């Protein structure tokens, strides 16, 4: 949370990494700005990561993109302060006063100089109160102009005031743009200014614009606007934020959100049925699947099925799985809650079904458009009674891609429901990453029977995983009641013990067949003094923090948990033994440190030190580094709060 007064912590000493914020009202076009810039940077060989922060609102509330661009590494972290803030409106400046580095750049609309923070209706009360206190403390009159002056004077910020009205007028003079449509070009005002400052090549911008604007006139009008602004800004300011040349040497990259990454992976994994009910931030995945439903012309297709609620969603997905197809549902917390009963049926009936679980801020409706990792415990223990499941969690786009495929493989290999945990951070973050090499990807459908087998027993007790025949091949029965080998209800005690041992025996099979190395990864010092233990989206920021801390001489490491069922108990056990359990620090996007709870439950190891963040905003490398230092100095619990 942006507390006042603020001091920025970073000077522009190196050009290895560019950080920016683009702010504006929800629905005002800032995603276009971001897309143009991201693709242009990628086109020039840089890695980009950009997080999108927005309210649960359709139009008008303050939204922003926060990005890191780097040519030295494929960036997977965000940090403060930023080098540039490009603001569509006054509210964006007010909201991010503290986020800009000393000597950074501010692009703003000079027409709005007289806007007052307390006259902006979309601003939340709490921020308004904090701003009021700030204005008072700094003796500012509350106008945008006063804030710009403050930034220039007290923070050496280079304020680039542009009259958006004038620029749009200029555009209208050059291109046939209707007056009513003109405001759509504000996004290009920002990209023009940003491109100028960061020295992105016009070729890259052209590429990016072409991709975005398929219609010729619109493309042209945008390029015109771009040229007007970029030449204006460049002529006055040069390109002070030009990055060093990229050393990434990637010839091709994917540029995609987490939602889209998972959708692509599902297509590769052979998904043939996806049911869903709209929910943020899961739904975009289903829309992407729908867009690609006819995968390759008249070849394979993916059936994407919108139902009336999530009860229907999970149960329809199970039905499709019984028919033998790779089937999944995608949802978020409230929807997952409604799937709990169906999940238990799938467990009881050994149905390979995948649930992609996009975590967002809870409890309840919570912070529907904000990120969190607070659904771990509720998914590991979802549904009454006991049945085996696999729970995976992805830390970045690349992991998400492969985990998605593994999810289907594990589901069929073990015949269990698989919960694949991702989160809003991942879902809505656009990242650049190498194109996955599919030649190494395997499809494992487990034991399947397609021919007719006399006396077929769906739940043959011979081995925990019985050969599975799709509906349509053999007569068989399924029931949520406890059952015998045929799938008929049985209440007999002896049968109960046998089938419980068969089903739960899968935990051992999984224990054997999912190698320990698959369950975690480790980054950092080989003989660390302190190990951060995290999962999911924490990965990017934690590895960054670890490498920065190591660069400053600290011996630290990051242990990343990738599977919660089965759990990497052996690794954590030996790490705790080697390093000392008191040197483990849970780093999580929730209140309790839920992975630490599961660590204790699985291993008896209590992780007493915690760095947590639950504001819905991602952790930033700068605050995590600082928090680690505080823990090193003896604090046991650090609650991170930064971010508008």
């Amino acid at each position, binding site marked *: 949370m942006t507390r006042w007064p603020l001091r920025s912590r970073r000077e522009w000493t190196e050009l290895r990494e560019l950080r920016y914020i683009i702010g504006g009202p929800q629905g005002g076009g800032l995603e276009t700005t971001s897309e143009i810039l991201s*693709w242009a940077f990628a*086109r020039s060989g840089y890695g980009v990561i950009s997080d999108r922060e927005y309210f649960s609102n359709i139009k008008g509330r303050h939204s922003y993109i926060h990005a890191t661009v780097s040519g030295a590494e494929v960036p997977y972290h965000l940090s403060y302060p930023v080098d540039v803030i490009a603001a569509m409106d006054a509210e964006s400046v007010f909201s991010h006063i503290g986020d800009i580095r000393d000597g950074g750049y501010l692009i703003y609309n000079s027409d709005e100089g007289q806007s007052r923070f307390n006259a902006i209706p979309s601003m939340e009360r709490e921020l308004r109160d904090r701003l009021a206190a700030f204005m008072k403390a700094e003796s500012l009159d509350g106008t945008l102009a006063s804030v710009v002056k403050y930034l220039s004077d007290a923070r050496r910020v280079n304020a680039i005031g542009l009259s958006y009205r004038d620029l749009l007028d200029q555009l209208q003079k050059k291109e046939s743009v209707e007056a009513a449509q003109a405001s759509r070009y504000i996004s290009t005002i920002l990209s023009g200014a940003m491109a100028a400052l960061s020295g992105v090549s016009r070729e890259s911008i052209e*590429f990016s614009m072409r991709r975005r604007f398929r219609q010729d006139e619109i493309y042209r009008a945008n390029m015109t606007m771009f040229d007007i602004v970029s030449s204006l800004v460049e002529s006055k300011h040069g390109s002070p934020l030009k990055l060093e040349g990229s050393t990434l040497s990637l*010839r*091709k*990259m*994917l*540029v995609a959100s987490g939602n889209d990454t998972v959708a*692509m992976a599902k*297509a*590769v994994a052979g998904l*043939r049925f996806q049911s869903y009910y709209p929910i943020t931030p899961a739904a975009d995945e289903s829309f992407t699947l729908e867009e690609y*439903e*006819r*995968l*390759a012309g*008249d070849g*394979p*297709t993916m*059936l994407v*099925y919108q*139902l*009336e*609620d999530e*009860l*229907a969603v999970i*149960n*329809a*997905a*199970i*039905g*499709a*799985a*019984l*028919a*033998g*197809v790779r*089937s999944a549902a995608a949802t978020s917390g409230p929807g997952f809650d409604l799937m709990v*009963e*169906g999940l238990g049926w799938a467990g009881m009936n050994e149905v390979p079904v995948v649930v992609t679980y996009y975590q967002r801020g809870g409890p309840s409706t919570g912070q529907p458009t904000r990120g969190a990792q607070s659904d771990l415990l509720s998914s590991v223990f979802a549904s009454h009674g006991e049945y085996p499941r696999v729970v995976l969690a992805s830390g970045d786009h690349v992991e998400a891609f492969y985990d998605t495929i593994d999810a289907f493989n594990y589901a069929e290999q073990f015949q269990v429901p698989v919960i694949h945990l991702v989160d809003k951070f991942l879902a809505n973050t656009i990242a*650049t990453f190498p*194109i*996955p090499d*599919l*030649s190494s*990807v*395997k*499809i*494992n*459908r487990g034991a399947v029977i397609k021919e007719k087998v006399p006396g077929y027993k769906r739940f043959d007790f011979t081995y925990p995983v019985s050969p599975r025949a799709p*509906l*349509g*091949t053999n*007569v*068989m*029965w*399924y029931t*949520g009641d406890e059952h015998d080998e045929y799938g*008929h*209800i049985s209440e007999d005690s002896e049968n109960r013990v046998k089938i419980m041992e068969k089903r739960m025996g899968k935990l051992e099979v999984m224990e054997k067949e999912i190698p320990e190395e698959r369950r975690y990864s480790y980054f950092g010092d080989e003989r660390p003094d302190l190990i951060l233990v995290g999962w999911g989206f924490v990965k990017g920021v934690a590895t960054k923090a670890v490498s920065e801390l190591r660069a400053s001489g600290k011996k630290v490491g990051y242990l990343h948990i990738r599977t919660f069922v089965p759990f990497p108990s052996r690794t954590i056990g030996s790490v705790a033994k080697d390093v000392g359990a008191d040197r483990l620090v849970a780093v999580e996007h929730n209140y309790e440190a839920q992975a630490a709870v599961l660590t204790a439950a699985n291993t008896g190891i209590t992780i007493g030190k915690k760095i947590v963040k639950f504001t819905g905003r991602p952790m930033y490398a700068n605050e995590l580094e600082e928090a680690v230092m505080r823990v090193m100095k003896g604090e046991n619990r650090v609650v991170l709060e930064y971010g508008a």
Partner: protein
Amino acid sequence: MALKQLTPASYRSDVWNDWCPGCGNFGIVAAMTQAFAELGLAPESTVVVSGIGCSGKTPHFLNVEGIHTLHGRSLPYAEGIRLANPNLTVVVNAGDGDLLGIGVGHFVSLGRRNIDMTVIMHDNTVYGLTKGQAAPTLGRGLQPKALPKPNIQDAINPIALALASGYTFIARGYTSRVKHLKEIIKQAIEHKGSAFIDVLQPCVTYDNIHTVEYYNKRVYDLQEVEKWDPVVKSQEEAPQKMAQAMLKAYEGGDRIPIGVFYVNPNVPTYEERLNERLKTYSQMPPAAQEIDRAGVPLIGNEGFERIFSKYVVTVG
């Protein structure tokens, strides 16, 4: 694949049927097995899906694919199965609590899709398996045996609700008229679209009001009504035929119509709609598609970049 040698007995499993002696449910199983035999359905490609309740046990007594799901959820399971593999004949057996109580949301929603399947409701006015509480089909003020107080909620009219929901085949049967019921089931299975059959099914243990005697006195066949024509000839005629069926559904006095209330063959099935969209759905539904070649995904490096070219940037 019609296997003509199949008899009703071929469709019975060897599981002991533990319904109460005299339960109307036996009539439903009899009618179903007869209908299946007459239609010559292959057991492996016939799927009976049920919810939870006395009615929910139906699949175990049948020798076809049997899916005994969750209370209220039979329809979504059936939808997933049918859409994944439209070569399967899908029949749902659900209790009245199952379908019009806890599952009524799915009941209404299926009507919007017209997926080609048959829904048989065991209408016994009570929650049988939980020991006789009021089901949503029980009239207000009635007090069957197990109720401590007279029922305080109004009954839902299943036919009216099916009409408003968009079912394209709507009928009522009665378990003591097995042949009549069998014929309706056959028609329903052969109908292209979502078919709903409200089956009057006396619960001999808990419902001492709607007994066989009670129904025998009141039931009459709509098809014997002069000029009764439930079939919608063209979509414009639909509201009129719905209104006509609605009036029959609410018929007062001591007359309970059975038979076919409404048939609308003019609405495309969901499968047809899907085929229009996916082009290859009918020939290559999900269950018929391969996803790999010997463990290698169908989509390789090249295909991936082609299909998802939108996401690929070539550094240049």
